[in-house]
């Protein structure tokens, strides 16, 4: 499902990842942990082909970075859902429009969209807030909205890059629980965090990154 083969990527100003080898199987829930600057975001960006490795190969859902062209990247991303620390919700659209966006991209018929949006918002506990704009929601709600947008297209892989970074401990805990319930439907999840207390003892593999190198699993 996600495979890194001797992957190296260096940013211009340093950091990155160095000679990474890892494999995440279908339906697995893995945590990625490491301090700021350890390469967690770089690893995530390599998974959704926002970065192409300097050396080695990333294979995600059969798409290989070695054979990846700009035209193929959107196709590769369609089976990946993403949740970001800064939410990346569109401020000028309400919750319904934000959540429905991936369905429009995938060309879903217009009459199916409202029902799917309602289901996704209900799943993340935001039912009845579809007319709200992002600025009218709390941080926790915005993050759940971001999650609704990520899961509405029923992705095979869900990437969550520091999704609890801007949340209080209660909201963080609820979000991880939510991710676990999504995982139960068979979605492969990779969640990056620097908060070890949040992820320890949950029974999921933990990948530890330090200075761009995978320390252990």
């Amino acid at each position, binding site marked *: 499902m996600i495979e890194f083969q001797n992957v190296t990527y260096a940013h211009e100003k340093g950091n990155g990842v160095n000679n990474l080898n890892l494999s995440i199987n279908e339906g697995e829930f893995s945590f990625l942990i490491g301090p700021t600057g350890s390469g967690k975001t770089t690893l995530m960006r390599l998974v959704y082909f*926002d970065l192409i490795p300097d050396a080695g190969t990333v294979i995600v859902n059969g798409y290989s970075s070695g054979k990846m062209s700009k*035209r193929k990247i*959107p196709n590769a*991303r369609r089976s990946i859902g993403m949740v970001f620390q800064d939410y*990346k919700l*569109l401020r000028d659209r309400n919750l319904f429009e934000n959540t429905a966006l991936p369905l429009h991209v995938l060309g879903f018929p*217009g009459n199916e969209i409202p029902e799917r949006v309602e289901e996704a918002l209900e799943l993340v506990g935001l039912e009845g807030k579809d007319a709200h704009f992002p600025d009218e929601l709390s941080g926790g709600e915005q993050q759940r909205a971001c999650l609704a*947008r990520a899961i509405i297209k029923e992705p095979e892989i869900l990437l969550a890059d520091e999704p609890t970074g801007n949340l209080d401990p209660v909201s963080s805990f609820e979000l991880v629980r939510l991710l676990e319930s999504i995982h139960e439907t068979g979605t492969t999840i990779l969640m990056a965090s620097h908060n070890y207390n949040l992820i320890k003892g949950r029974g999921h593999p933990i990948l530890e990154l330090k200075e761009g190198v995978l320390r252990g699993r």
Partner: protein
Amino acid sequence: MDKFLYLVSEGMKNIWRHKMTTFTAVFSLFLALFFVGLLATAGTNTHKILHYFRAKYKIEVFFKQDVSNEEAISYIHRIKRIEGVRNATLIDKEDAVRIFKDQFGEDILDILGYNPLPVSAVVNLTRTSRDPIKVEPIIKEISAINRVEEVRYQGNLINKIERTYTRILDRFPYLAGLIIFVAVLVIYNTVKLSVYARKDLITSLQLIGASRTFVKMPFIFEGLFIGIFSAALVFPALIGSINGVNYLFMNYTSWGIKLIFDPTVLIWLFALVIIITFVGSYRAASSLLK
């Protein structure tokens, strides 16, 4: 089809979502198109003003004293055949006495007891020639008639008007090109700024897996709608301005000039705005796509 309709509706919604940006873009486009339209109208009407001046050109031909009216008529026929001559009118000796009386208030026959005024002719030049009129060859040809005593004409004035017209004609394409170029730059940059203002939307769409075409289309539709709005404002503004100028010409001048608005200008302006907004939004959106 649903996808296409969504992209069109997104283009329209973006206009509403970004009202200020849209207003700025529509206003800039309106101004640019209005000036291009005025220039085009001026171009199509330049000849009218020239025709007005050319109608005032007058060559006076005085025949020798002993030339009779009948003889003068045959020379007038000859003059009419000269290239560049529109018309020649005979002023016989009796007419000359009447004109003298009109101008000086005295009857020359009473003063002198005989009519010393020769037969003459007033020659008018072609008005509608696209090329500048060269008056000297016409004068030369008239003067070559051995029974012509004198030829009087406004040589300097005619040459000055014709030279000015030639200058305008020569520089017009450059001026038009410059104004269109500035208009294109204004429109392109306006659209580009509008696209740049929504960089976050482009990033989000890309992360979701939208194709490059999907990302670009709403911007292109938005650009086209802005272009259509601007054109819809420019058309009545242009027609109104030209009607206003015509009203002033008709009521406050004796020129008798009526500007004509060529409807093809509207088609050209519409085509121009569609091309510019399409290219502008396409290129602006493309430049933000990695």
